[in-house]
């Protein structure tokens, strides 16, 4: 049976081995977030590394009785991505390299075009809305958990999600009209 997270977190404050277990548990989540926010493997790797080093450095200041460890990591990730977009002036760029997840068949032309359309509409959304969609559809967090990451109430997240999906739908319709 795996060790409960709150015990592991307390041990990880002094024990690098325990931090390694936390790393294994949360790596894919953080990496997925970074890949879907930056759209490139090298940037996702670079930022994922920064997230875990920051977590290691500030581990002793983390209070496990507050927010869950995964939420804490995603807050660090969000701040780093925000800085990354600002520093690189690529806020609206979601490249999502032509790298398909392992085990997937090569996409046909039609599917590639469809994805390009969705990416374009997604990239036109404000950064906080892209952040919300990644938390919802990649990390599969509940609205309450998203609220903890974004510092908003559950109701505010629900409303924002609704507005965001409607904006995205409109954006997709515009793109389809421009490039039918």
């Amino acid at each position, binding site marked *: 049976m795996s060790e409960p997270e709150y015990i592991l977190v307390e041990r990880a*404050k*002094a024990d*690098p*081995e325990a*931090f*390694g277990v936390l*790393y*294994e548990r949360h*790596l*894919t989540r953080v*990496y*997925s977030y970074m*890949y*879907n926010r930056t759209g490139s*493997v090298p940037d*996702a*790797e670079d930022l*994922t*590394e920064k997230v*875990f*080093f920051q977590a*290691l*450095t500030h581990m*002793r200041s983390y209070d496990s009785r507050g927010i869950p460890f995964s939420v804490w990591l995603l807050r660090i990730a969000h701040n780093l991505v925000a800085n990354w977009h600002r520093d690189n002036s690529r806020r609206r760029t979601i490249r*999502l390299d032509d790298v398909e*997840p*392992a085990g997937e068949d090569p996409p046909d032309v039609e*599917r590639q075009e*469809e*994805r390009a359309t*969705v*990416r374009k509409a*997604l990239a036109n959304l404000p950064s906080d809305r892209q952040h919300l*969609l*990644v938390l*919802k*559809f*990649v990390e*599969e967090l*509940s*609205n309450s958990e998203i609220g903890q990451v974004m510092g908003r109430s559950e109701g505010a*997240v*629900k*409303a924002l*999600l*609704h507005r965001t*999906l*409607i904006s*995205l*739908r409109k954006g*997709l319709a515009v793109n389809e009209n421009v490039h039918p």
Partner: protein
Amino acid sequence: MYIHSISPSIEGISRDEDAAGWPDGRVEDAEIGKTVRRLRTVLRPVEPSPIFRQELRLRLALAGRRDRPPVQVASSGELPREVLVGAALLSVAGALVYLWRTRVSHAGAGGSVLAKSSNLPVTAA
């Protein structure tokens, strides 16, 4: 895996909410469901490469050992055994030194008294 998230069961995107303010809530609901399905063709979990996973774990382990906090001595009730034994030995050694010095000084003081007593003026009885 993702079916539960597709409209109308997307948390936060209820049928009632969609229906409010729209001429036909069901149409809107279906449109949002379609948007979510399209979104999922782009946004999805991705696994990092095994090499990256392993290398980063190693680097974190090295950094963790380097920056390991010193052993905390929080209160006297939680003093490590080595510290207690060392303190006891020092106390015993201190006591022995004190006793030895006391005996030496007493012996010295006793000798001088005898020496002085021989120089005392002899008084006539």
